[in-house]
C-alpha cells in the first residue's frame, strides 16, 4: 500500500555509481542542483539532461524507479506549472475570462517543470545508489570541519542514519497495522475529511506506541554496547578516495565548466 515512496530508498545492484565514495555522490548532487539554476538556455538544459541520462545509464537502476519518486511531487509540479503558465506577465497568446497564457509563461513553466524533475531525479539517483549508512557516513565526514564551531556532527549524522533506518521499518509496521484494522472493518478510504482524519486514530495510536517502544529498545541496545557519542570512535570501514572517485570529481567539474561555458558563450 505504501510502496510508492522512494525517498531514501536504496536499489541494490552492481554499478560504478554504487561503488563511488558517498562524498563524491553528495558533492556531485549538490553541484548538479546548483548547475540547474545557473544559466538558462536550451543548450544548458540539454547538457543537464545528457549528464543525467549518462548517470542513470551508469547506475543500472531502472528508470521507472526514479519516475516513481516523481509521483510524490506530481502535485507540486502541476501547481508550479499552472501558476507559471497563467501568472507570468508578457505577450498574451490565449486569453479567456481573466486568465491569459503568455509566451513568457509557457517558457517559464517548461523551465520550472524541467528543473524540478531534474532536481528530483538527480537527488533520487544519490539515494537509490547509496545505502543510508554510507550516505550519513559521507555527510559526517564532509561536515567534519564544522566540529571547530562546536557543531555535534557525529550526533547529527547518527540521528540521521537512525531516522533513515527507521523509515522502512515504520512503513512496514504501518502496513501491518493497517491490515489488522482493515481486518476489523476499519475504512481508511471513504468519507469526508473529518471522518478520514478520525479513521486514522486506530492506525496512529499503535504506530506511535510501537515507535516509542522501538526507540526505547534501540537506546537500550546502544547503551549495552557502551555507546557514548563520537568521541574517539573509530570506523570499521573508513572512507578512502580511490581512483574512480577522483575521476568522477573531474567529470563533475568538467560538466559544471561545460555548463558555464555554454551559459556565457551561447
Amino acid at each position: 500500500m505504501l510502496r510508492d515512496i522512494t525517498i531514501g530508498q536504496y536499489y541494490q545492484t552492481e554499478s560504478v555509481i554504487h561503488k563511488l565514495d558517498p562524498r563524491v555522490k553528495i558533492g556531485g548532487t549538490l553541484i548538479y542542483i546548483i548547475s540547474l539554476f545557473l544559466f538558462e538556455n536550451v543548450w544548458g538544459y540539454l547538457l543537464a539532461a545528457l549528464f543525467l541520462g549518462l548517470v542513470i545509464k551508469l547506475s543500472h537502476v531502472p528508470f521507472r524507479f526514479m519516475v516513481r519518486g516523481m509521483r510524490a511531487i506530481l502535485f507540486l509540479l502541476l501547481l508550479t506549472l499552472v501558476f507559471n503558465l497563467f501568472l507570468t506577465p508578457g505577450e498574451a497568446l490565449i486569453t479567456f475570462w481573466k486568465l491569459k497564457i503568455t509566451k513568457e509563461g509557457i517558457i517559464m513553466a517548461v523551465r520550472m517543470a524541467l528543473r524540478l524533475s531534474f532536481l528530483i531525479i538527480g537527488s533520487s539517483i544519490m539515494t537509490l545508489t547509496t545505502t543510508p549508512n554510507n550516505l550519513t557516513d559521507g555527510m559526517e565526514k564532509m561536515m567534519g570541519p564544522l566540529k571547530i564551531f562546536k557543531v555535534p556532527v557525529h550526533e547529527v549524522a547518527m540521528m540521521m542514519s537512525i531516522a533513515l533506518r527507521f523509515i522502512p521499518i515504520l512503513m512496514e509496521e504501518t502496513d501491518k497495522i493497517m491490515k489488522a484494522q482493515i481486518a476489523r472493518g476499519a475504512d481508511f478510504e471513504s468519507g469526508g475529511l473529518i471522518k478520514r482524519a478520525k479513521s486514522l486514530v486506530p492506525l496512529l495510536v499503535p504506530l506511535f506506541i510501537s515507535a516509542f517502544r522501538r526507540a526505547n529498545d534501540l537506546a537500550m541496545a546502544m547503551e549495552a554496547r557502551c555507546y557514548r557519542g563520537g568521541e574517539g570512535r573509530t570506523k570499521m570501514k573508513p572512507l578512502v578516495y580511490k581512483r574512480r572517485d577522483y575521476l568522477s570529481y573531474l567529470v563533475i567539474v568538467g560538466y559544471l565548466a561545460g555548463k558555464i561555458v555554454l551559459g556565457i558563450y551561447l
Partner: protein
Amino acid sequence: MTLIVDHVNYIYDPDSPLAHKALDDICLTIPDGQFIGIIGHTGSGKSTLVQHLNGLVTATEGHIYFDGEDIYDKDFDKKKLRSQVGLVFQYPEHQLFEIDVFSDVCFGPKNLGLERKEVELRSYEALRQVGFPDELFYQSPFDLSGGQKRRVAIAGVLAMKPKVLILDEPTAGLDPQGREEILGLIKRLQKETGITIILVSHSMEDVAEYVERIIVMNKGKVMYDDVPKEVFKHHKELEEVGLAAPQVTYIMEALREKGLAVSKEATTVEEATEEILRAFASK
C-alpha cells in the same frame, strides 16, 4: 460458507529486484466447521495465504470463492467478507488502540454499522468467550500481559461474529502456559460455536493436538494437505524443509526400533500413553 482457493499465485514486489513468488499455484477447499492448521517455515507463504482469504491481499493470478461468489468480482462486498472471515494478526500490539479493553473490542462490530446495544452485547459476549476477566474490562489494553492482550485481540475479531476465524501465530512470544491456555481456548471456541478455525503456526507441537487437518506450506506451495496422522508419517521430509513432527512421533519411532510393537498412528501425548500401555499389556 465454503472457501475455495483456486490456482492462486502471488508475486511479491513484482517489479523490483526483490520480486519473488510468495504463493505458487495454491488450490484449497475449506469447508464449514473444520479446524485446520497451516504450518510452514518462516517465508513459506503461510501468512500471505491467509491474508488472501479475507481479501487483504489480492492474488496476482487465480480466484478465491467465498460461498460461491468470486471475491475479486467488482460488486463483491469486501467489507462483508472481512466480517465473515475474521483474521487475528500475530501481534496484538498492531490492533489495540482504544483507552480501554471494552471499547477496543467494540471497534470491529461498530464498523459493521450495528446499533450501539448490539455492539456492546457482542463485545461482552466475545470477551466472555475468550475468558477475559470482567474486572479488567475497563483497563487500558496496553497494561495487560501478553496472553491477555492476545485474548483481547481475538475477542476484537470474534465480536464481528465471523464464520471463519483465522489466527496467525497466536502463540508467538507466549510462555508454555500462556500457549496452552490460548490453544485450549481456541479449541473450546471451535467446539462451542462450530465455526471454521484456521490456525497458522510454524510449530507442529502447537497444532498436532488440536487440529483435524494440516496444510504444510513450503516455498509458496502446498506440500501436504491431510489429517495429522498422515502428515506426520512424512516426518523425514518435514525435517528437510525445516519442520519437525511432534516429539511423540519420534518417541514412538524409537520405541518401535527397540522392538516395542506400538503403532505409528499416535500423534498426541494421550494417544501415545494409551498406545504404549497397550503395547506393554499385550507383551
